[in-house]
């Protein structure tokens, strides 16, 4: 006992220090998960995240699939936003350009940011955007109307993917949200001023 006493006096502190380092690492990991999750989704198409590739397809495929286009606008953004066509058919490896029509219905400048995904989720890894309006924040002047292109193709690799065998139709969806500058005031005055729905 006596021989080991000095060592054992420090040992609990060492164990505790190691455990604190471990817990701190997990905490850091939880924050790191934000960029990691984004990178993971972008790399694997997890959760229906489309891929990006400015280069375009390298091969032509055989299968023909339907791609449907969906558009949503948040309540607090006074925009009309809809695809020019409801759906198209295309062969894998074929690059297509489609347009979304957008109009600011208000008399002041507004800005929005799009969230997007494709469904079914497993199609994300094979839906490749060459160019898209959704990559940055968009501004529209009063009553301004525009047409925004999306350039994309379906990766022929999907023909080899077991999970894509049953998929005939892929939907690309955008949801525009008003750009937020800061967190809204949290007093109950502003909350109550809003009429109840």
């Amino acid at each position: 006992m006596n021989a080991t006493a000095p060592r054992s006096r420090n040992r609990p502190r060492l164990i505790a220090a190691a455990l604190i380092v471990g817990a701190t690492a997990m905490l850091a990991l939880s924050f790191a998960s934000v960029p990691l999750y984004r990178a993971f989704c972008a790399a694997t198409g997890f959760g229906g995240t489309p891929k990006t590739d400015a280069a375009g397809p390298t091969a032509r495929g055989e299968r023909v699939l339907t791609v449907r286009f969906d558009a949503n606008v948040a309540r607090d953004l006074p925009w009309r936003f809809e695809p020019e066509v409801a759906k198209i058919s295309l062969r894998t490896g074929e690059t297509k350009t489609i347009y979304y029509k957008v109009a600011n219905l208000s008399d002041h400048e507004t800005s929005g940011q799009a969230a997007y995904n494709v469904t079914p989720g497993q199609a994300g890894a094979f839906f490749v955007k060459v160019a898209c309006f959704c990559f940055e924040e968009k501004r529209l002047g009063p009553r301004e109307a525009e047409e925004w292109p999306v350039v994309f193709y379906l990766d022929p690799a999907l023909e080899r993917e077991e999970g894509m065998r049953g998929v005939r139709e892929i939907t690309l969806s955008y949801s525009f949200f008003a750009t937020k500058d800061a967190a809204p005031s949290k007093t109950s005055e502003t909350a109550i001023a809003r009429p109840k729905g």
Partner: protein
Amino acid sequence: MFNVNRVMTRGALAAAVALPVTLCAGFALAQENGQPVPGGLGLPNMVTPVGLGTQQLYNMVLMPIISFIALFVLGLLIYVAYRFNEHANPIPSKLTHNTPLEIIWTLIPVLILLFISVPSLRLLAEQVEVPEASVTIKVTGNQWYWSYKYPEDQGGGFGFDQMLKPESELQPGELRLLTVDNEAVVPINEVIAVHITSNDVIHAFGVPSFGVRMDAIPGRLNQTWFKIDREGVYYGQCYFICGKDHAYMPIVIRAVTREKYNEWLAQAKQKFAGADQRVRVASESR
């Protein structure tokens, strides 16, 4: 000292009541399609391929297996309590290891789980892989109602909100908390794809008779599908907590023949003309 026999009889009694009920629970009773049945014990009558698959998986595979395991464990407990209580067996054995036994009770559950996973994963693929749809409806969750849109390329081009009918306005035969003002109509025997998203917080679209449940998440489009095999009115509800009126945003889908569906489309186009605009105005005033 506590009377062991009394434990036994009471335990056995509890089991005798609980377990037949467990067994019955797997079998759906005759009921009107599409709405919950009073005092129902099992799954609702299913009217879609996925729903029937779910019913089969639960009633034929999962339910019998879990009932058997529950009975088996209960039986072992009762036997052990009877055979090895301190009166019946005053001298305890020193048995603490039996490697073959341990291997068996590791392997058999693995086999059971493998057995379950085959039909389960097959059904999963059927649920997730949406077949080619002839009708696609877009459903959007709101606090606290659902909005539907029928796309233009399939004879639609209109949208409407579906709100709960207040209790004071119910006609005889209409269901409290389930009846709505505007039913969503779809044709039978055709694949209906449902695109689901939300305009505020998370909701979930679910219709028990279809075996369908899918979250409505803002900024994200989800999809599911169903193919209804008979006419009827099918009720669903919101399956994710979304605020104070979570319990007050039902879903009603009316399934009709293709002819009646086309008629409805024509009527609805007129009835809901400009509704898209109306919805927008209504939501802006919020």
